[in-house]
């Protein structure tokens, strides 16, 4: 307890960091909805987007000839293989909720789940 008193401001500081981290976590969890769409971007440019409902395999051509194999199966997306040496994106697991993403830094590839775009059927009326 004495240690706690001696380093009061340090303890408060670290506690504040942890609490704000948890607050961020709650915020992200609250605002993440089940996603409907997988969007693939390379160097900031959107190259493809797929529905999570359809199973498919897609070879992403990343920066400088790097490739990542994206697989969508059972409503979840994951990286099956990658040309980069560390393969960290493969280990990032399966994603399905809006806001989740798989990132491959060497190939500058971002695969993110987003809410489904409202389809044309949802539009009530179009005025020209």
């Amino acid at each position, binding site marked *: 307890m004495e240690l706690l008193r001696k*380093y009061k*401001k*340090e303890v408060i*500081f*670290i506690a504040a*960091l*942890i609490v704000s*981290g948890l607050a*961020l*976590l709650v915020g*992200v969890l609250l605002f993440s909805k089940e996603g409907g769409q997988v969007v693939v*971007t390379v*160097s*900031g440019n959107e190259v493809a987007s797929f529905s999570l409902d359809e199973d498919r395999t897609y070879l992403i051509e990343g920066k400088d000839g790097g490739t990542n194999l994206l697989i969508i199966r059972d409503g979840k997306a994951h990286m099956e293989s990658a040309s980069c040496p*560390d393969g*960290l994106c493969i*280990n*990032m*697991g399966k994603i399905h909720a809006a*806001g*989740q*993403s798989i*990132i491959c*830094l060497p190939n*500058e590839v*971002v695969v*993110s789940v987003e809410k489904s775009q409202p389809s044309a059927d949802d539009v009530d009326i179009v005025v020209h």
Partner: protein
Amino acid sequence: MKRTKKIAQYGLTVALALVLSYVEAQVPPFFAIPGVKLGLTNVVVLYALYVMGVKSALLINIIRILLVGAMFGNGVSLMYSLAGGILSWIAMVVLKECFKFHIVAVSVAGGVFHNIGQILVAMILLQTKAIAWYFLILWFTGIAAGVLIGVICGNIVKRATASTVR
């Protein structure tokens, strides 16, 4: 401090930081997330901050980042390192000099702000906000790594300043 001694001390600390960078790069990532790491080199930067002064810490950190970038990295990894290194240095200096925080808390701030810097660069490079999840993970691992490094470096500083070598 005499000039010769200063040169020797800079050389030693930069060399140590380089070795630690290399050692850290050899450790396979135990988390499946890039960027989650211990930040061993921050031991050296923290040491420099406490023993050699604020400016020396920045100088050593920047020299270390440039050398590591030239030897093992590329332009992109250099940008990540520089952003993280400079931001964490600012955070550590503010906490140490303005608020007189204990070394562990200073180290935690360094860890967290290092990660914030890297996330900012990633946001700019990848043009995406999809890294919110990633940011959360790095936030917590930054705190944990910071505590560990702070405890290690606190002990080193205590011993180094007690010895007659200084």
